[in-house]
């Protein structure tokens, strides 16, 4: 209604104003009705071209024997998936991915919660601490792995120097399954703990102060307050952090690749080859059908984990109320 107001006085002034009015009116209607689509179109066009279409097409490619060199792509049905599910390297990579994911996520979440809890009070130098928390996240993954490969080095590494100075034997971090997983998890934790702590801190700051005041009057210690007030109040954010870190940990790639000095197998016994690296190994063989099957399986794993996550957080909500 309001939009018509300026048009009303126009007709008497101009001869032939009625036609101009309808033209203007028409233009205005088109502007209001259609322009919103024009503004969201770039995102959706780009997403369809480089997001949605490729994902669907991945499924199509995975049903074929498809290499980049051949122009013929024979349809093989689910053969790629059958071979994949029978491939012990695939299950090895799945185990490594889950192991590294759990080793990095659990301590990371607890540490991030605790750090956010510490920062969630009036402190001097808040900004200084926040910035140092986020510095590792600004550092690129490649840089992180190069730096930590040096720190975890067998002969001249900083950590082995500390260990040997206590009279113990240095550890060949890359050689063992557990030790290599610990090393890679450390890199992930170093890069992401501060970031997650800040997200949790943001949620904590939205918790009403009165709850803490009441808890303090009841004599609850700081730790009890964290457990009984903070955590239940910010549960959606915790779920968000868990889901995003799960998706991230299913796609760990640069760490195992560069920790092993660019070997695609992730160690001589594949002891730290993750799913993404297993995918990349097959991609480098130009076996696109098979690697598409791998990337679909990774997608399915993520959906399953997100689903479990969703059920668990819903369940927790139900049992508390």
């Amino acid at each position, binding site marked *: 209604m309001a939009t018509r107001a300026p048009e009303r006085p126009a007709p008497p002034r101009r001869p032939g104003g009625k036609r101009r009015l309808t033209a203007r009116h028409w233009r205005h209607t088109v502007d209001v009705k259609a322009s919103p689509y024009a503004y969201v179109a770039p995102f959706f066009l780009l997403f369809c071209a480089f997001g949605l279409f490729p994902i669907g097409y991945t499924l199509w490619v995975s049903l074929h024997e498809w290499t980049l060199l051949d122009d013929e792509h024979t349809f093989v049905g689910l053969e790629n998936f059958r071979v994949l599910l029978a491939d012990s390297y695939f299950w090895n990579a799945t185990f490594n991915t889950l192991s590294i994911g759990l080793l990095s996520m659990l301590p990371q979440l607890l540490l991030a919660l605790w750090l956010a809890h510490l920062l969630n009070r009036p402190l001097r130098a808040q900004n200084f601490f926040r910035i140092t928390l986020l510095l590792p996240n600004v550092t690129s993954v490649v*840089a992180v792995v190069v730096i930590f490969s040096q720190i975890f080095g067998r002969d001249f590494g900083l950590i082995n120097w500390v260990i040997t100075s206590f009279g113990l034997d240095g550890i060949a971090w890359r050689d063992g399954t557990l030790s290599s997983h610990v090393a890679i998890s450390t890199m992930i934790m170093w890069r992401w703990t501060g970031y997650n702590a800040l997200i949790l801190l943001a949620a904590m700051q939205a918790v009403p102060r009165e709850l803490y005041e009441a808890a303090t009057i009841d004599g609850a210690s700081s730790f009890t307050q964290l457990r009984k007030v903070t955590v239940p109040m910010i549960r959606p954010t915790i779920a968000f952090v868990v889901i995003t870190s799960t998706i991230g940990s299913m796609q760990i790639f640069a760490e195992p690749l560069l920790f092993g000095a660019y070997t695609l197998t992730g160690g001589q016994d594949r002891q730290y080859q993750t799913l993404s690296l297993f995918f990349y190994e097959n991609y480098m063989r130009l076996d696109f059908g098979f690697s598409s099957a791998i990337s679909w399986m990774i997608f399915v794993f993520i959906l399953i984990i997100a689903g479990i996550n969703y059920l668990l957080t819903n369940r927790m909500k139900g049992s508390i109320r």
Partner: protein
Amino acid sequence: MTGRRVNNRLTYLTLTAVAFFFTIPLYYSVVVASRDNASLASVPPPLFPGGNFFENVSRVFDTVPFGLAMLNSVLVAGSISISVMFFSTLAGFAFAKLRFRGRNILLLMTVGTMMVPTLAGIIPLYILMVKLEWVGSLYAVVVPALVNAFGVFFMTQFLSRALPTELLEAGRVDGCTTWGLVWHVVFPAARPAAAVLGMLTFMTAWNDYMWPLMVLTPENPTVQVALSTLAAGYVNDYVMGLAGTALGTLPLVIVFALLGKHIIGGIMQGAVKG
């Protein structure tokens, strides 16, 4: 009161210790980058920077096209972040303030796509780049990243809070077209959030690794691809590897340390609503 003070002192102590562990790897990388390989073998290992930094850096430039890599990364990250800021502001404005059929479902789709892993569509994306003959060119890295769901969602959140509807109505009454509103009202109001989004996008694009590694060549790399060439081919040349790393990382770290307050504010604002 004293109990609280002790408690506070403990908090500062813990946070300082954490800050120490969060910065020590960066510091140590500078130490290694400014030494020579022989000195790394000494016991105890070097704990302070030496004087070899520039020599190591010049070896980096002799081994990989590092200058070109820096230029490429600036071009890639710069054009991606300008485009993301622009298109995300437009879409965010439409989602936050305009009424149109299908708005809610489209917004839901946008949020949903944030959960989809890049890996799920990467093979066809590569095939597409082969067809377009973009393999080896920066287009392959820039074009798919010109706008993303996170940016749209971020700007939607910000504009629905920060852009007064009355201002838009006033503009309409004055006879502004929608584009006129975008130009005169939305862009000025969006500036603080768009700046944060731009910085975040720049960092992400600068640090992106897997996709550039797949579509670019060692002859025309981004910084991360060049660094991985160093890390792959010269495994035992720690000082050169870390000199390259320091060179490719420190500019961003320094810029972040200076502007960090605003970026952190942006991340935390986005998080509460999300």
